[in-house]
């Protein structure tokens, strides 16, 4: 069994001491642990070496699940506890995505996708960081993400829905001046009799606002996205998903 000295990781990040004393989810497998560490560390350069080494004992799917995604879960935990800030999570998610790409190449085909999710950041809003995290978590959990990017006009969201037939749509907004686009998107979709769950989140977006229009589900944080998408795939309606998460 390998012991990995996470202290060195935390020292480098200038982190608070109490975190080190908390239990950190790790793998007993030295190869997978190296993958986890590279993700937690946000060390994209270390990812190819760690992932390729892990192929000696693990199939690519397991490396994704027990290495890359597990590392990102650790990053999410550090984020939740206020230890990691956004730059670290972006760098970690880059590392995770680089690793997933290597695993997918090894498998010879992309992972079977559970369904399509369209993500976007509201028109006028250049803060697409929350969306990036949502994308990474959805992909890591086996969804195909159609990433419309930031500053997306309402019309583009509507035509993407027609084209890709997603199970769910997400919108993020960090600016108070941009979030009103979400209500327009929801009403355009329901007008077309398309009652897709429309998950909205981000700094400017409140539960009250999102629940004020049909199909709107408020996303508290990026981590909820994969669970909501699973529910949508399993046939739950927007109102059932809203009830579950927004109670």
């Amino acid at each position, binding site marked *: 069994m390998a012991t990995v000295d996470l202290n060195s990781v935390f020292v480098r990040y200038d982190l608070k001491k109490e975190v080190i004393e908390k239990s950190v989810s790790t793998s007993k497998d030295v190869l997978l642990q190296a993958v986890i560490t590279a993700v937690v560390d*946000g060390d994209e350069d270390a990812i190819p070496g760690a992932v390729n080494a892990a192929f000696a004992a693990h199939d690519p799917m397991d490396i994704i699940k027990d290495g890359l995604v597990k590392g990102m879960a650790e990053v999410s935990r550090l984020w939740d506890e206020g230890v990691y*800030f956004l730059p670290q999570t972006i760098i970690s998610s880059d590392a995770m995505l680089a690793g997933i790409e290597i695993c997918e190449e090894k498998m010879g085909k992309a992972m079977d996708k559970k369904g399509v999710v369209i993500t976007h950041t509201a028109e006028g809003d250049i803060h697409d960081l929350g969306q990036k995290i949502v994308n990474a978590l959805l992909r890591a959990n086996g969804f195909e993400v159609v990433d419309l990017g930031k500053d997306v006009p309402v019309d583009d969201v509507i035509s993407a829905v027609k084209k890709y037939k997603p199970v769910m749509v997400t919108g993020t907004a960090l*600016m108070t*001046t941009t979030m*009103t686009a979400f209500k327009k998107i929801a009403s355009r979709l329901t007008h077309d009799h398309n009652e897709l769950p429309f998950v909205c989140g981000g700094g*400017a977006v409140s539960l009250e*606002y999102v629940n004020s229009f049909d199909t709107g589900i408020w996303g508290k944080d990026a981590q909820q996205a994969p669970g909501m998408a699973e529910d949508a795939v399993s046939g739950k309606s927007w109102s059932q998903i809203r009830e579950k998460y927004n109670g």
Partner: protein
Amino acid sequence: MSEMSNRERFLAKMAGQETDRTPVFCADQTATYEQMEHLQAFWPEAHCKAKDMATLASGAYHMLGFDAVRVPFCQTIEAEVLGCTPKHAGREGLPSIDVHPFKIGDPVKPLPDNFLELGRIPELINAVKMLKEEVGDKVAVIGGIIGPYSIAASLVGVIDILKMSFKNPEKLVPYLDLAEQAGTALAQALVEAGADVICIEDMMASMDMISPKIYKTSVAPWETRQIKSISVPVILHICGNLDLIIDDIAETGVTAISVEPKVDAPAAKEKLSKYDRFIPLIGGVDAVTTLYSGSPEQVAQVTVDAINQGYDMIAPGCSIPPGSTLENLKAMVIGAQRQKAD
């Protein structure tokens, strides 16, 4: 005490003096669709033309009863002049930055000598002059500039600046230098045009974006340099929860701090009370849940509570959502009057 004019009230509180009631204003954009209709000054013209900009901004005094008026409405004026391509958003929205001109590592030219004559800057300067002439004796005039880190983010892209702030902040120095010089030059011009106060919006320096360590390394030194160069009182507005950096912000030398309600106001006040100057805490009303989605009564009550909690000046915690109702906006002033009467 006898009733003060809006301007007297605002400037007295900024200077730490007694006021007849708590001042009310917004450190960020103030325009709403109802004001546009009433004043017949609309976006996008009000982003580009001095007359429309000043007319729409004056609504904060004429229609809302705020103690300060403020221009501009958008956050792209300096960045556009420095080479960013803005994307215009028509009548309903604010321009955003579409194309970031630099990749980190690209060389940076010095600030052009004619910087103040470029792009929409002359219009902004004129708008301040017009506001000063038309309402400047009754209400405080705030000139808005964008903070160094936020302009730098427009220059190189948000994700790239965040990553580099973490990995190798030294590489950001040329962009931060240019951004600071641009904002400072604009601030000085706005002061000469008649601005009583400068508000620096450094929205990218939010803890939703960066860490306290990055604030210390890549934000505070440039904000400090900028604030030192401005000859009038300076408000610094940063979004998000600032509990971890209130002291760092105070140490920039800023006059007053504008925050979102996410901030622990009593704790912030206690920290600020340790400085030998009075540092007003501005904010208290959530721009979305209260101002946009709430009722006038809720807005008034939140205002009363915020004053009792320690806020020295009442303002939305962020830009006013342009769909907010006049009744809700006016309820902030009503709340401040009611709190005084209680």
